[in-house]
């Protein structure tokens, strides 16, 4: 959708809907709102609905900043302290680190490396 061809009232309506939608745990929607309407709100020559659009963009940016800080804090804490949490950490995890290191890449030619040696005769 091209904003240039949309009337000002529609732009305001769209900005407002994006702003309200972001409250449904959608900071990404706020990010899109800020990026999309930034030019309209702050760079374009003033028009009737611009102050309102500015307000929504500012609030979306504020919400986005809060979410970013919160999420960053949580992810930072989680990634660094996960091992210490034991059972609670595992409860939260969707994808755990595998316990064994990933297998070494297969050598083309297919002969598996017999690193440990086969069974040895006594």
């Amino acid at each position, binding site marked *: 959708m091209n904003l240039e*061809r949309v009337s000002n009232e*529609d732009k305001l309506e769209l900005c407002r809907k994006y702003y309200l939608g972001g409250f449904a745990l959608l900071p990404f929607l706020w990010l899109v709102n800020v990026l999309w309407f930034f030019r309209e709100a702050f760079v374009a020559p003033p028009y009737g609905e611009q102050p309102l659009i500015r307000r929504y963009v500012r609030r979306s940016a504020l919400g986005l900043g809060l979410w970013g800080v919160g999420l960053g804090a949580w992810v930072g804490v*989680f990634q660094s302290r*996960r091992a210490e949490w034991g059972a609670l950490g595992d409860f939260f995890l969707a994808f755990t680190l595998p316990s064994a290191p990933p297998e070494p890449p297969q050598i083309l030619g297919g002969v598996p490396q017999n690193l440990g040696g086969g069974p040895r005769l006594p």
Partner: protein
Amino acid sequence: MITFMNNSDSEEEPCNERTSLMSAESPPVPSYQDGLPASEAGEPQAHRKRRTGSSRSPNNIADGDMSDSGVPVRESTLENEEEELTLKYGAKHVIMLFVPVTLCMIVVVATIKSVRFYTEKNGQLIYTPFSEDTPSVGQRLLNSVLNTIIMISVIVVMTVFLVLLYKYRCYKFIHGWLILSSLMLLFLFTYIYLGEVLKTYNVAMDYPTLFLVIWNFGAVGMICIHWKGPLQLQQAYLIMISALMALVFIKYLPEWSAWVILGAISIYDLMAVLCPKGPLRMLVETAQERNEPIFPALIYSSAMMWTVGMAKPDTAARGPSQQTWDTAEDGRENHRSPSHADSQMPETRSPIPTRPITSFEELEEEERGVKLGLGDFIFYSVLVGKAAATASGDWNTTLACFVAILIGLCLTLLLLAVFKKALPALPISITFGLVFYFSTDNLVRPFMDTLASHQLYI
């Protein structure tokens, strides 16, 4: 299907249409797995899109009536200019389609090369029931041909079903189907994809963050595709869901069946778009009769703006040209691929020469672009992804297939500029791709290996 989009209509649609914002979104895979045609989803959207285009014509015609006298005189010259413009900007259209197709292929190839999940064989779709683990070559070939027949017939049935739904105006059903499809694609497949990528890179992820990421990605995707959103974001989402769909195909289609299916689908595309009794063509014609746009949710549109100078046909003239629906790609959405393939509906809309309405002092801004169905994206990516996954020549074969597809796309766009009607985008590209794949894998690679081993550089 690929068509020119001569109207910048999308933006001005009344809000209940919403078609313009949804550039073809092909129904997600579920249709395959659930046996529902994905293509159907595409069609209604294509229809809606069509309607958008036509809604402008009445306005244009009204304008035209006012400046009636000069019209006949200028018509021919304006038509010529119109044609010149089309051909002149055709090159830009080609480039504008190269970028998304390349991006989709890059995503698919990068995933195939790094995430092992998508090259492991873990079962097959119900649409390809015959297994390829047979001892004899003949049996394997037979099984793959049978798989192809089943797959193509599923696609044909779905396409016909979609056409019937459209004919009998069951828009709600189609719309609901489309939404369900895109929901599944955006949420379920993204979840699986993210899981596999995280596993590959050994990154720990907690449930709350995961839920948040998937919820955001999916919800904003639904909003962008089915409602209103920035064009670039919409295009990005369409590329991503095409890539996801292609990855599913690459994983679940057995080896030989995949190649035979690719060949058969390009033949089907050719017939469905160009034959007078083809389902996609009928869909397009029905949409044209009703003056409605076809569902755009399954079509990728590369909108481009430029300003038309004075005394040029203004956008009103676009009215009739709207029908040229570039969204032929939407046609693909038909059933063909559970994934967005519907966009390839053969929408053969014959371009109607625009009726220029003289606008002496106006500078008209017209939006022109080309629309490519998401099914085209998907099958291009399937071809290149399969080449990356299974070719022994590694990057040589992959690059050869990539170049072949782009050459095919160029030729198709050239034909589009010449014929000015909806064309199937698959046949030329897939043919080149298949030829390049098999010849590079079997002829070029051994040749180059031998040269390298003998230290002979040419």
